[in-house]
């Protein structure tokens, strides 16, 4: 309490640290949009200059699918998603693939910017661009990205009470990703139950969802939960653990008020148990949404100590930003020795033999050396789980008989091991398959440097 000149007591007004700002709401939207676009353009430019440096090795697979003539990948034995591969193959006949990817990224960023603009949430313009999720979505083009963007458009049209128009992006989502369609359908069912959408649309949405689920990959019927997805937060799935924690705080605060968002979050958690990649990407978006709501609340509330208020907001913003920086720095371009490994394969093994390699090396081997591999890291491939399990087991195993059986089963002629994708205790301590290779007559070493080893499997009598 302060005393005025007249000696009357005047109540001190508690101000928010941010209350002195003179920025109007409309200006905030504009400033936010400019910031959003600058970050978006910078990311696309960086990604293009570094030859898709932010989307390896998925980028390689997209380029390969665009350059192929069919949807069958002969080198990895998988099928590309026809809805991604066919349009890309068509477009790349007219425009080079690099420019196509830039155009697609630009369209995605524009759509997101438009949706945020319509939502009247200027803060989203500031928070989303500094999150790892934004880097991923604006630089990594996969069928999942397309499904995600279409889902966002579906949700947006539903918010705008345009269910008829929503059917179009909803159908496209269904073509690309049944899990995303399921999430959307749960949301639509909720809206219909509360009579926000007319019941007459239910059959249409239901039929599309059912058809999509019928074509669900066979591996999807079982829970594909893998704890490593959570361990690798912030690097692989663009879901930073710090954003997740802050988002969780936001969820606890707003779950009652934000019923629709709560529903989407719960759907995301359920889908995560069925298909981790799809579920996590939705949880990422929800985490960022709740983080934004939390920051908004922190800014709007009047704090007793404005210093703590300012520091808290800065802290959250910095933590998201640092997660993004970590995400970007996680991608390192290939060094000379790595390039040398692929060059050796390309020059010395040219008869399209099948190479046993870690799935993360699979894409590069197929792209740079035109040789067959057991599998790559294309996640939608139906039998990928079995193949990756076999590869993982073989790399870690010192059982000669089992290793020989797996190598024979996939008709492999060479073994390609890299430091990057071998577990530390196996590569550095020469354990697992390296122990077998060192101590048995399973294979002969043909090439080695600090980054890789290539072994020729001895034929069995």
């Amino acid at each position: 309490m302060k005393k005025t000149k007249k000696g009357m007591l005047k109540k001190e007004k508690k101000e928010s640290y941010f209350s002195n700002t003179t920025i109007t709401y409309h200006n905030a939207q504009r400033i936010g949009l400019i910031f959003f676009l600058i970050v978006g353009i910078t990311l696309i430019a960086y990604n293009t200059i570094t030859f898709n440096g932010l989307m390896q090795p998925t980028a390689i697979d997209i380029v390969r699918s665009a350059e192929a003539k069919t949807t069958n990948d002969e080198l990895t034995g998988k099928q590309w998603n026809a809805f991604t591969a066919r349009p890309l193959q068509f477009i790349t006949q007219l425009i080079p693939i690099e420019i196509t990817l830039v155009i697609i990224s630009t369209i995605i960023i524009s759509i997101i910017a438009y949706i945020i603009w319509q939502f009247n949430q200027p803060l989203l313009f500031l928070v989303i661009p500094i999150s790892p999720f934004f880097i991923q979505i604006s630089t990594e083009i996969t069928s999942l990205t397309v499904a995600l963007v279409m889902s966002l458009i579906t949700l947006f049209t539903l918010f705008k009470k345009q269910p008829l128009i929503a059917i179009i992006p909803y159908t496209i989502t269904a073509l690309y990703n049944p899990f995303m369609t399921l999430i959307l359908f749960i949301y639509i069912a909720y809206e219909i139950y509360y009579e926000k959408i007319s019941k007459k649309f239910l059959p249409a949405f239901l039929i599309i969802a059912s058809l999509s689920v019928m074509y669900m990959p066979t591996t999807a019927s079982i829970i594909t939960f893998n704890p490593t997805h959570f361990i690798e937060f912030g690097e692989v799935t663009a879901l930073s653990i710090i954003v997740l924690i802050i988002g969780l705080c936001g969820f606890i605060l707003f779950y009652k008020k934000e019923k629709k968002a709560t529903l989407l979050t719960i759907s995301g958690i359920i889908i995560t148990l069925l298909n981790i990649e799809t579920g996590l990407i939705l949880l990422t978006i929800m985490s960022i949404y709740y983080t934004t709501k939390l920051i908004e609340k922190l800014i709007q509330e009047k704090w007793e100590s404005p210093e703590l208020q300012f520091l808290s907001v800065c802290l959250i913003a910095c933590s998201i930003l640092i997660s993004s920086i970590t995400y970007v720095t996680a991608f390192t371009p290939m060094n000379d020795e790595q390039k040398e490994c692929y060059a050796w394969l390309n020059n010395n093994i040219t008869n399209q033999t099948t190479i046993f390699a870690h799935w993360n090396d699979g894409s590069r081997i197929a792209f740079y050396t035109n040789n067959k591999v057991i599998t790559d890291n294309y996640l939608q491939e139906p039998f990928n789980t079995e193949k990756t399990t076999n590869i993982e087991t073989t790399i870690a195993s010192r059982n000669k008989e089992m290793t020989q059986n797996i190598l024979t089963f996939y008709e492999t002629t060479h073994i390609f091991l890299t430091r990057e994708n071998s577990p530390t205790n196996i590569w550095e301590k020469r354990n697992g398959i390296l122990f077998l290779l060192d101590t048995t007559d399973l294979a002969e070493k043909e090439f080695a440097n600090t980054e890789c080893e290539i072994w020729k499997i001895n034929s069995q009598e």
Partner: protein
Amino acid sequence: MKQKSEIFLLMLIITISTAIVSSVAFISPSLKNDGSHFILRNAENIKENGIPLYNDQLSYGGRTNMFNPGTPFLIAGLLTIFPKSVALYIIPVLIASTISIAIYFITKKLTKKNTIAFFTSIMSISLPVYIQNTTNSINTIFITIPLMFFAIFYFINIGEGKKNIYPFLITIIGLALITPHILILGLILITYAILLRTTNIVIEQNQKEAIIFTVFFAIWSQFLIYKNALTIHGPAIIWQNIPLEILQNFFTDLELVAIITYIGIVPLVCGVYALYKYTFISRDPKLYMIIASTGVITALLLLRLLPLEIGLIYLGLLLTICTGLFIVKSTEFIKETKYKQYHKLSGILIMSIFAITTGSSTIIALQEKPFIDNTKLETYAWIKENIPENSTLLTTLEEGHSLTYYTNRKNIIDTHFLGIHDINERANDIRIMYISPSIVKALQLLNFYEVDFILMDYAYQKYNVDRLRYADTECVVPIYTKEEPRRITIFEVKCIVSSERN
């Protein structure tokens, strides 16, 4: 009591305490525990190169370290300004004894009685477990504990005006740089908020804001430091990748007799009684902070998330504060009886009982022999002179840091477990290397870990063996033997059977 005499008395307590503890520390040939040598090695590296040993070429034969850099930087600063003896043996003790100031002010705040606050401050610096862990040691505990209690004090006072916000901010930033225990503070604050909510007490706005900031800051700051460890160990990081053999032993010593020895019977009985009484009666939010702290520390101890001794330091100091409350309660009680003229004696009586029951434990804690004695130092000096550089020595994990500090040779294990793959396998392999009767098995492991020499000292006691059973062959030969005052042997590994283990 006047403020001047209050300050004088506090300074007197600190000076006497520092003088006693430092005089004991000076007699010791080296720092007491193995962890101190890790801090010292990092501090010396900072002094020379400006950065801590994040890429440590000697620990585990070469590894990336993850730790809070605050203490090594502080010790490096002290080593730059003061002579080594002052920087290592006096100033850390002086900092550790500031706990008495924090306890004094917290108790004063809760009881509003200066005399009782003095009693508790004296009790706090006499706690055997605290003395044991801060005498002759530069482990982070000497600064962590005072900072934690200052943070609690400033948090309690934060509602009284802005003047307490900045000290609170400084303490939590200091804590974040020094120790991951800031996460415990975050947990305490959350528990405090929940406790107030469940008892329908409105939390002060300033405190609410401080909680929000502290929790976010604690998570973020430690996430930055330990992100790589998190990606390696996942959620299991909360157990700090401690090998199971140590984790299982966390509670083998947690017996009532041990607790009484560590923190004393008076704080235990009086503190627990006061806690019990006030938890259900008091509506004072300040007291809820102590209740929340005690609850969180006890829970962490029971869940084996906090080392026993550190947990007991926190618990002992919190119960000491509660003892202050007990004295108030007992004084009030005596006032209501026919012996009311003796009510002032209750505090003196409790202090006397404390002195009698805990005094001997405190003296024993003060006189505790350092792990690194003269005999060991002589052995390390021999190693430095006679064993080639770049050699790897097999030691127990308790000897790892001191070996690297004194000899500049590689170890294969020490007490920094974060970031190490297959730590349980490694710990088990070390046990096998010490107790195995099979030369082949032992050699496979020795070759796998690239061990050149084996140090048998603490291993005799730890693994309860009287000799290295596979030694005295051509492959593993003794090159250094000392029989008095205890047996120490160094063996050289001369054979290679295979670079792999089975």
